[in-house]
């Protein structure tokens, strides 16, 4: 669980004592995390621990209140509009429910980033889209409407769209939420395969511990906006930090309490002896 403090070149994204607050609500506090190049990193955390905020900071959709998020050595929050858009062309993001464009077909969804950013001929564009769809096993679904897709298929199409521009960094926001075990395994397998084949730096924000631990290279555990531990899956499994233990093993009560802060139960029901 030693915090990695190696040379910058080994990591693609660095969080340097990043804090983020929404109004008065502090969501992230003093985050120091580096995402190693070409590896899959998982960010674990329960609901409402600032995982999605974490991704949005990397994409430049939110700006940190303190500290800096560096993408390839350049702080994202200091980038101009043009630089930020240039940086985003090197990123891909898979949204929680795919976020496919509902008025376009599967083919057009995958073609969208290519059409927007390149001037490819119709033939080349078609071939590229077919290749990307083939990579996620949905070549045959290219003429379907997005409404005809199952949850797992929609996410695979979204994944094909995210890798359309061959990004260096790909972010997965809760990729396993709401999927059946088969679809979950398919997506997990795809994430691993794409990482191996294309050497993309991947970051996975999730609370699906069991699936994720099997595919990732490095883990960061967030709890109430702070990093409570990071390391390889092996190290995380063997951690004796009670917060991590509760999260990994899915214990009902622990440092994260089951009950929302409330007055004494018996008093609330009016059965307490004291008046």
């Amino acid at each position, binding site marked *: 669980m030693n915090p990695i403090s190696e040379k910058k070149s080994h990591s693609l994204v660095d969080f340097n004592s990043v804090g983020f607050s929404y109004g008065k609500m502090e969501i992230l506090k003093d985050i120091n995390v580096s995402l190693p190049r070409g590896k899959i990193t998982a960010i674990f955390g329960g609901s409402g621990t600032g995982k999605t905020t974490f991704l949005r900071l990397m994409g430049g959709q939110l700006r940190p209140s303190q500290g800096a998020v560096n993408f390839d050595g350049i702080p994202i929050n200091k980038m101009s509009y043009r630089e930020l858009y240039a940086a985003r062309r090197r990123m*891909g*993001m898979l949204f929680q429910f795919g976020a496919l464009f509902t008025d376009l077909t599967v083919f057009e969804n995958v073609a969208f980033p290519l059409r927007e950013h390149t001037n490819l001929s119709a033939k080349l564009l078609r071939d590229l889209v077919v290749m990307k769809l083939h990579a996620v096993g949905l070549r045959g679904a290219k003429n379907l409407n997005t409404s005809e897709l199952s949850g797992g298929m929609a996410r695979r199409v979204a994944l094909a769209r995210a890798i359309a521009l061959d990004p260096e960094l790909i972010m997965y926001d809760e990729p396993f939420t709401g999927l059946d075990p088969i679809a979950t395994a398919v997506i997990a397998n795809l994430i691993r395969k794409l990482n191996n084949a294309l050497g993309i730096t991947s970051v996975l924000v999730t609370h699906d511990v069991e699936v994720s631990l099997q595919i990732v290279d490095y883990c960061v555990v967030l709890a109430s906006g702070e990093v409570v531990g990071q390391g390889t899956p092996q190290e995380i499994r063997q951690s004796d930090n009670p917060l991590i233990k509760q999260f990994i093993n899915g214990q009902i009560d622990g440092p994260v309490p089951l009950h929302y802060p409330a007055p004494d139960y018996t008093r609330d029901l009016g059965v307490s002896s004291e008046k």
Partner: protein
Amino acid sequence: MRNNTLFRGMILVGKLTIDGVWKIGSASRFMFYVICRSGMTVRRPRLLLDEIYFAGALSLIIIIVSGLFVGLVLGLQGYETLKRYGSAEAVGTLVALSLVRELGPVVAALLFASRAGSAMTAKIGIMKSTEQLSAMEMMAVDPYSRVVTPMFWGGFFSMPLLAAIFSAMGIFGGYLITVVVIGVDGGAFWSQMQASVDFQGDILNGIYKSVVFGFAVNAIALFEGFDCLPTAEGVSRAVTRTVVTSALAVLALDFVLTAFMFTGA
């Protein structure tokens, strides 16, 4: 007790005022962005064409049918009133002036708000609530340039045309009911109309009105869509707000513009 109610009432009024001013501010900033990022719409007319289809062509039927009915009613009512004074031929003037000056731009804008404006709000709101706008942003595609601005210009361009169609259909409706059905003299109908409708003073002013309404309704519809809470309920509320706010804005602006255009020397 009563004091308390009064106090709470004052707080509510204050809060509503502040919220309103806040909203006007963010809407203005939003429109500033939209207009500043019109470059892509100019470079890719395809996008604009799709939005003209969405806002204009799809509103064509409702505009034509309601224009016709409004004209029929105006013709009938106008005839019934004017014949008492023995000047039934003036019904052409009455129908044309009321349509060209007021009803054409205003009713077309109200219909546009409920047909195209609400659809725009819903489209943007759904794109927002399903993270499609976010996804676009992460694909390094600016959602303002790619989605909002073409919608704005498409609607803005369609509005005056729809108003003109509405007025033309209304006058045709008035002609149908008074000349063809009731039997008012057709020559007098057209000549009296032409003698009293001024191209610059009446028709052009009506078109200016519809341009202003087009700006207002499109701006409101897009802003409400962009500003809505990203939930199903948020989107439905935004759609309601679009229709209500647009209607109020159109009627209030109409008063102001009429005061400018048709009064005084």
